[in-house]
């Protein structure tokens, strides 16, 4: 194998003093004194969450306060890490949304399992589950890391509704039809 000898160039005088390099470095540092800050004082300061961000999955209510989930269990079925566990149940007769018939008795999402893929949101036929802006989950025990139904609604809040399909159904049921 051929060996190529490379002649190393000797340093100039200026280079040997290191001064130009130090000044160059200080210039870069000085520039950042006046440039806008790029870091955040987390956790006091929080980043702006971009649109379509996939944070912690949450359950939402419609603007009338009705829980949108009807416990069809499609999210439980589609969830790749099997993080979701639902106990379906019948909505009691005295409830104002008895016409929806079915709702979750229990709804648990194990955040130690969740991979934030968003398939639950994609599959939901009732637009009841959304991955929203909440991105940090922490706890001291495994049990704390399982979000139950109350916690999921607390995280989710209310989102606008495009359809109000169950309200329309109820109106039709009450109105009946010409017959």
């Amino acid at each position, binding site marked *: 194998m051929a060996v190529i000898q490379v002649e190393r160039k000797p340093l100039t005088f200026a280079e040997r003093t290191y001064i130009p390099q130090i000044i160059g470095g200080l210039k870069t540092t000085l520039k950042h004194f006046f440039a806008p800050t790029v870091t955040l004082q987390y956790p006091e300061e929080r980043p702006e969450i971009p649109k379509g961000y996939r944070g912690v999955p949450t359950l939402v209510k419609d603007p009338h306060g009705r829980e949108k989930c009807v416990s069809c269990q499609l999210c439980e079925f589609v969830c790749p890490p099997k993080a979701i566990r639902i106990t379906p*149940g019948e909505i009691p007769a005295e409830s104002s949304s008895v016409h929806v*018939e079915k709702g979750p008795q229990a709804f648990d999402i194990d955040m130690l399992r969740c991979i934030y893929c968003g398939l639950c949101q994609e599959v939901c036929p009732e637009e009841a589950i959304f991955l929203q802006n909440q991105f940090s989950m922490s706890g001291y025990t495994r049990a704390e890391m399982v979000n139950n139904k109350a916690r999921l609604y607390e995280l989710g809040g209310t989102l606008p509704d495009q359809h109000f399909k169950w309200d329309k159904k109820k109106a039709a049921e009450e109105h009946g039809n010409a017959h």
Partner: protein
Amino acid sequence: MIQPAKPDLVTVNIDGKEIAVPKGTNVIEAARLVNVDVPHYCYHPKLAVVGNCRMCLIEMGMPAVDPATKAPVIDPATGKQKINWIPRPQIGCGTNVSPGLHIKTTSAMVKEAREGVMEFLLINHPLDCPICDQAGECKLQEQATSYGRGYSRFVEQKNVKPKRTQLGPRVTLDDERCVLCSRCIRFSKDIAGEDVLGFVDRGSYSTLTCHPNRKLDHNYSLNTVDICPVGALTSTDFRFKMRVWFLKQTNTIDTESSVGVNSVAWSREGALYRITPRRNDEVNDTWMADSGRLLYKQVAAEDRLKSAESLDALVAKAAELFKTSAGSIALVGSGRSSVEEQFLTKKLATALKASVALVSRTAAGDKLLISADRNPNVRGALVTGLISALPSARLAQLAADIDAGKIKTVVSVGEDLIAAGLTAAQLAKVSVVYLGTHANPTSIASKVVLPTLTVFEKNGTFVNQQFRIQKFAKAVPGLSGAQDDLVILSKLVQAAGGHETASEVNALWPAIAAEVPVLGTILYRNLPETGLLLDRSAWAGLPFVEGETLHYKPAQPAATATA
């Protein structure tokens, strides 16, 4: 080319495939034989054909013949006999095969017809699949994926019909989902013999309802839920419990009577959710009584027996009793035990030199799928030689022996001795070793209680009233603190000084096949899911209590029930 038909066979051509089918077969069944699916709602193989859903429309034609000479007309283009296609679609369910019949199930006309039917069916459908229990096993859902248009052209208001109607104690009706196929009406009228359902109103206002002052409360009402192709009729017990796609299906046998109805246990993660019938044309067709569907609840019942002690400690206690009372032991076997358990029970009786008695349970049969003999496996005890005569309802001989002081220990395999006619005083005179699943007066009075498993937690076979041996499989894991009956029995056999036996069904069967002549050629794993008829000639003279039921005629007029 049309093949010459064999006697009683008719050759038809379905989508270009020729097949010989029995005369009287309709097009849906003939197509099924060549793996062609003809979608349908109202047609059911075990019900009368009404042809009102119009989903099974097919295109049909007959080979052309010259009207005058009856000579085949040959198509000059192909050199084959010309087919005269009927220019309008026909219903497959109502069309019986005839020689040379040609069927198209995939033509443009058929597809268009099916799409038209689907669109009309979906016009007033509430589309509430997310809350509908039928989702996942709904014909409307399945066929909407093949023939639905994906969006609705219907801009008017949908019909409103009664929802959440309680048709009876076990059935909930949602009329908006009904496609008016009338299967439930035909079932109630023709099979269950209780004509309680019917349609009222006309056109798109037609509504399924119960006759005034009647309820859908007969013991076969849940079959209407099974055959409902959509989510109109749903089971109140299963309502909103679990989506069907999560459930694992395990073949099992109904234990409520000697009919041996084939059924499926649906479970998820060790919990049972429902029992449905499984088709067996020789036993139960596609039906099952409601009472048998509730039996799964015994698995998670509060009064299940369980033991904190190890099985070996319990068996040692029993062995001690066997030793101290050797020669004065009686054994009460069970017509609810599986064939394998009865085989080991017999081994135990031989090892203990004990007398064996069975307890019969009889009640009036319903002439359909519940027979007079409410034990599922009395014939298994005959086949395995556990008993040689039919059991009686009361243990009179055992009671007399206890009173005479001849018996010191009684081993009961799941039989409540007090219910079988022994008094508490008699029971107090003896030591009882009880193998059972649930607490009862006998288990409370027992010296040694060995908790066993229910039929849903173990493998085994039953011999039904036709002497058909049918297997059931383990649907859910056994209760913690209880043991498989076979494990307990084989340990007891050893404790009693008998030979070591296998304690698992597959391992045990070679021994059973070797020792029981009628079962000589059978192995558990080779048993077909629909069961196998045994040679019953050896027991033909016995006065069995069963009267006539579906697919069963008693060999001789039934002896009047002794119960």
